[in-house]
C-alpha cells in the first residue's frame, strides 16, 4: 500500500518536474508508435480500401487472415522481427536490431492487421446508397471509391486510434527487438518492466500512471470520433 502511495507522489513530482529523461522516454514512445501508425496508414489504408471496394478471388481469405492476425501475440512478432533483423538473419546486413527502427518495424506489423481489419469494416459498413448516389451524380469509379472512403472517415480514424492504442501499450515485441537500451530504445512500457524488475515500484507506478493517462486521452479521442461519426452536430 505504502509503495502505491509513494508511486503516486513520485508520479506527480516527475510529471510536474518535467524530468528530462522521462520526457525523452515518453517522446520516444510517441514517436515510435506514431511512425509505425504513419507507415500503417500509408500502406494499410489503400489496401483496406482495395479489399473493401474491389472484388477479387482471395478476398474472403485475405480478410480472414487479417482478422486472425489481429490477435497476434506481440512476443511472437518480436521473435520474428528479431530473427529477421539479427546479423545472422536474412536482412541483418542493415544493422537494424536494437534500434528504434526495429521497434517501428515490430509495431507496424502489430498495428497493420488491426488497422486494415477495422478500416475494412468501416468501409463496408457505409450505406450502399452512397455509392449509388455518387454514381448518379456522375462520379467515375475512382471518385465513387474516394467518396465511400470519405464517408467511412470516422470509422477509419477509430481503427487507426485503436491500433495506436494497442502499440503504445505493447511491451513484449519492442523489448525483444529494441533491447531496452537506456536513452536510445527505452520506451515507457519497457521502462515500466525494467523498473518493476529492479524493484523501483515508485518509478514504475509513476510511468504506469502516465501511460494510463495517455491511453485515456487516446480513448477519449476515440470516443469523440465515434460520436462525431454517429451524431453529426450543427455548426
Amino acid at each position, binding site marked *: 500500500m505504502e509503495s502505491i502511495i509513494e508511486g503516486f507522489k513520485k508520479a506527480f513530482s516527475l510529471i510536474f518536474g518535467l524530468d528530462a529523461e522521462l520526457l525523452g522516454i515518453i517522446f520516444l514512445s510517441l*514517436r*515510435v508508435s*506514431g*511512425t509505425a*501508425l*504513419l507507415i500503417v*496508414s500509408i500502406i494499410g489504408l489503400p489496401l483496406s480500401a482495395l479489399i473493401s471496394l474491389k472484388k477479387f478471388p482471395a478476398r474472403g481469405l485475405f480478410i480472414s487472415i487479417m482478422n486472425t492476425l489481429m490477435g497476434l501475440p506481440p512476443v511472437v512478432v518480436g521473435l520474428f522481427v528479431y530473427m529477421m533483423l*539479427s*546479423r*545472422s*538473419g536474412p536482412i*541483418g*546486413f542493415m*544493422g537494424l*536490431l*536494437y*534500434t*528504434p*527502427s526495429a521497434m*517501428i518495424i515490430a509495431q507496424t506489423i502489430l498495428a497493420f492487421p488491426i488497422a486494415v481489419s477495422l478500416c475494412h469494416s468501416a468501409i463496408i459498413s457505409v450505406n450502399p446508397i452512397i455509392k449509388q448516389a455518387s454514381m448518379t451524380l456522375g462520379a467515375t469509379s475512382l471518385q465513387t471509391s474516394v467518396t465511400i472512403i470519405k464517408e467511412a*472517415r470516422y470509422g477509419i*480514424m477509430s481503427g*487507426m486510434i485503436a491500433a495506436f492504442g494497442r502499440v503504445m501499450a505493447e511491451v513484449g515485441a519492442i523489448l525483444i527487438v529494441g*533491447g*531496452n*537500451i*537506456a536513452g*536510445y530504445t527505452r520506451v515507457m512500457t519497457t521502462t515500466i518492466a525494467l523498473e*518493476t*524488475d*529492479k*524493484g*523501483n515500484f515508485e518509478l514504475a507506478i509513476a510511468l504506469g500512471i502516465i501511460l494510463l493517462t495517455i491511453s485515456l486521452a487516446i480513448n477519449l479521442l476515440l470516443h469523440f*470520433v465515434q460520436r*462525431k461519426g454517429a451524431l453529426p452536430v450543427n455548426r
Partner: protein
Amino acid sequence: MLFKLILLFMIIFIQLPPLNSSAGTKIRCASTTSTQNSGLFDHILPIFEKKTGIKVDVVAVGTGAAIEIGRRGDADVVFVHAKEQELQAVEEGYFVNRHDVMYNDFVIIGPSNDPAKIRGMKSASEVFKKIAENSAFFVSRGDNSGTHTKELSLWKKANIYPQWGSRMGDEAHLTHLQKWYLEVGQGMEKTQRIANEKRAYTLTDRGTWLATKDKDKLEMVIVLEGDPVLFNQYGVMAVNPQRHKHVKYKEAMEFINWIISKEGQHAIASFRDKHRNQLFIPNAK
C-alpha cells in the same frame, strides 16, 4: 478537420531528426541484468565515454542470451559471468580477447527464521542437499543465466535433480518436478522477491542482494557465504571480427583495454551502491 489535425501530427513526426543518428561512435555491449541493475554501468560507462568519446549501449539480458546475441553478431562486446561458457564460445571462434574483469560472490539466502536450519553449514552442495531433504521451498532463476548455471552445477554436485522435465537430455537422473522447487524464469531481483513471498531459499549474487534487500524489504538473511565454489567471475570479450565483419572491433577493444586497465579497474572498485557497499572486486590480470 480532425483528419487534417491527425495528418498534421504525423507530419510533425516525420519532420523530426532521424531516430538512429548519433554524433559519436557507439558500440553495443550485451550484458546481464544483474550487472545493469546493480548500477555499475551507470557509474563506469560515463567515465569511459568522457575519455574516449565512445558511447556504450547496454542490452541487458540473461548470460545465456547475452552470449547468444554476441554469437549472432548483434553486439560488439559481451560482458557476462559464466566463465566456462565464455571460454567455450571463444574456443568455438565466436569471440576473441576474453579477459577476467572483476568478481563478486554468490550467497544462499533464506527466510529470516531459517526453517531448514541451514545456518552454520559450510558447503553449498550440502546446503542444497538439506533443502531437498526438508522439501523447503527453493526458487530457481530458471533462465539460463550465470546464476542459474551456477545453481545447476551445485545441484549436480549434490547429486539431486529437482528440475523440470525439459532438461531431461542434460540430466540423466532426472526425477519429475518437485513441488518445493520453483523455476520462475525471471531476473535476480524478481527471483529474490518471489523467494521472499514464498518463504523460500534461493541462490543470489551478493551485489544484487546488497543493493536490493532493504529497498525490497526482504525478510531474508544470508544463510551461507564464503564457500569457494560460490565465486562469481565476470569476464569481457570481443565479438570475433573475422566471423562478423560489421562489428566495431577497434572500439570494442578500446573498451576492453580500458576496463582491464588501472583506470577501468579503479572505476569498478570505486563503485558503491546507495548503501555505500562495494559490490564488485576488480581482478583483471
